[in-house]
């Protein structure tokens, strides 16, 4: 990355070189010369410093892991793997287990991600396949004014507004999402949750009623929070589908839907999958909104409406008042969360890389 940047910087000078040499021949002064030692020095300095900064980030991650690990060591020794299987978090009696939090983290993230993916992908397809322009064109034609160039650029403008709006969702603080969840989402889902529970209560996922906060409201808010990530990357990878493929698909007589579902989406699938994985990483680490919406109850339940706990919420809730022993246990929990997030993010990055490599031949 950093080396690429230095090359890019060096490359800027290149186009102007012919012009310079022309001037040189006019003035009979030799301008083409080897770089001065100062230039070499500053070039080297720039490259070294970017490299140092890049490595510093890696060092930082390592440092965080090590320092958390050091503080977690006592409780890793004391509780071992039992910590991962235990279901009770009771600082009062020094009993710590994070199984409900692990399951709650994964359950809420996967649920939120599933909902977010459906909507995110739909939006990405809508924004990348010019649905807006064809719709608008038809409307304009009926008014008989499709010739105007301002109207012709309108769909692109609207698409951009939509895109920016969705990306702005990522800028809303999660406390705001949490409050919105408590005061809007929970009352909104309660009637349907109660109906599902009373009529279809025999299905495990509807086996409890919604008692205020719970998995479902948490997952719904998470879905909105991961929407920008999924939409942006999915759209980018859909736009990156080579024009050859598009033309070939339509040339073969495929309808629009056939082309989208059978050609474009599969071609962009690896990129879309990477988007989902990155969204997953975001969902796993989300703290404040979940601490406010999931219910913070150490319960393991299949039910969508049952309260739950997540690792990040557990950490946020217990840190300020924790004593020495509990801090160790919390650090252990932080390490587990870090491991889960790291695995998911590495997987996502690898998949994205493979997606790029797979498309190279097509370009």
């Amino acid at each position, binding site marked *: 990355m950093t080396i690429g940047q230095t090359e890019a910087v060096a490359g800027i000078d290149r186009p102007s070189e012919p012009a310079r040499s022309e001037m040189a021949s006019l003035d009979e002064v030799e301008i083409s010369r080897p770089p001065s030692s100062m230039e070499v020095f500053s070039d080297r300095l720039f490259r070294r410093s970017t490299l140092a900064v890049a490595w510093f980030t890696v060092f930082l991650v390592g440092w965080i892991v090590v320092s958390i690990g050091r503080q977690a060591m006592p409780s890793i020794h004391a509780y071992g793997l039992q910590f991962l299987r235990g279901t*009770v*978090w*009771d*600082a*009062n*009696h020094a009993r710590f287990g994070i199984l409900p939090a692990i399951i709650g983290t994964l359950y809420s993230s996967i649920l939120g991600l599933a909902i977010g993916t459906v909507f995110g992908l739909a939006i990405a397809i809508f924004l990348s396949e010019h649905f807006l322009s064809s719709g608008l064109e038809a409307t304009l034609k009926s008014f008989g004014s499709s010739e105007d160039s301002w109207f012709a650029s309108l769909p692109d403008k609207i698409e*951009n507004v939509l*895109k*920016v709006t969705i*990306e*702005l969702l*990522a*800028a809303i603080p999660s406390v705001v999402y949490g*409050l919105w969840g*408590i*005061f809007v989402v*929970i*009352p909104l889902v309660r009637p349907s949750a109660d109906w599902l529970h009373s009529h279809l209560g025999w299905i495990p996922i509807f086996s409890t*009623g919604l*008692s*205020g*906060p*719970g998995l479902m409201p948490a997952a719904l808010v998470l879905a909105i929070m991961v929407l920008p990530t999924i939409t*942006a990357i999915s759209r980018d990878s859909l736009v990156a589908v080579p024009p050859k493929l598009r033309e070939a698909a339509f040339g073969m007589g495929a309808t629009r839907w056939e082309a989208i579902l059978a050609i474009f989406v599969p071609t962009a699938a690896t990129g879309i999958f990477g988007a989902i994985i990155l969204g997953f990483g975001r969902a796993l680490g989300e703290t404040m909104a979940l*601490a*406010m919406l999931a*219910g*913070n*109850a*150490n319960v393991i339940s299949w039910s969508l409406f049952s*309260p739950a706990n997540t690792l990040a*919420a557990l950490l*946020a*809730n*217990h840190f*300020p*008042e*924790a*004593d020495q022993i*509990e801090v160790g246990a919390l650090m252990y929990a932080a390490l587990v969360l870090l491991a889960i997030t790291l695995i998911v993010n590495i997987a996502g990055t690898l998949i994205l890389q493979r997606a790029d490599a797979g498309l190279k031949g097509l370009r």
Partner: protein
Amino acid sequence: MRIVRKLPLLAVVSLACLGLAILGSRLLGELGPATALGAEDSITLQGTGATFPAPLYQKWFVEYNKEHPNVQINYQALGSGAGIKQFQQHLVDFGASDAAMTDDEMAPVKDGVVLLPMTAGAIVLAYNLPNVSTDIKLSRDAYVGIVLGKITSWNDPAITKTNPGANLPDTKITVVSRSDGSGTTFVFTSHLSAISNEWKNGPGPGKAVNFPVGVAGKGNPGVSALIKQTPGAIGYVEYGYALQANMPMALLENKSGKYVRADLSSGKDALASVQLPENLRAWITDPATPDAYPIVTYTWLLCYKKYQNAKTADTLKSVIKYGLTQGQSFSADLGYIPLPGNVIDADMKALGQIS
């Protein structure tokens, strides 16, 4: 396209810059005249601690600052545990806690500790039953049973028995507790432990307790919000928050079998039931006075006996004196119980230990 993608970021960054610039200019504007007037006179006190008395303390500090513009008092309501921790580490000039420091906690503080009860408050059981207009009465068996998860429905005989005319619905009870460690939880669970062996031997008393049932919200505001949003919910919050949020509060059965509403007089009765010892540390887990509200606590300021800087000590003493005298008049409005006269006298005497 590139620029459009970065638009949100650009907007945020430019807004942040604007904000910083405004903040900076205001700070400069404020600092300018103050430093000109005489920096040697201004003094800042740092404090950290309980959220429970925070509204009252903030009110005191603001009012005190109006009378003494050269004294700035920063109080951060991070929680009782944080208050004790930062006080032990000498990060602050004073701490605050709803659970008085234990001897073990005081031992490592080499400058000595003075505990000063500054105000008192009640902890109430607020609930959400949309179609019940009368205030419900809860017997000791009923509210212990509810938090233990043994009573799960509002029309359970244990509740209907004491509320004949209330027409209680068949709604599921959702217990709302605190998800973060808190002095409020400590006081509530200490009371439960005092009246129920099953609670004492089960979850027990503590700042962060493993509640057998229900959901948990962060802070008094979080618990209040969850109760208000959940039909059938019941939870413990500090009286002032319940009052402000306009939530119905249950009348609780006290030690002498009376059903008592949380208010100023029942709170005062509870405080009168306990005589503060020499070290001003007392836990009122179950007051015996006939008309006392059962869940009441003092809340303490934590001060060092010796301060490096005599001016800090003098200023702090002056602030505390203000809180103990004029400050007590704000208590009732904010939902706190003014200290009894003998406690104020004891505090004033204890102030002499600070130097």
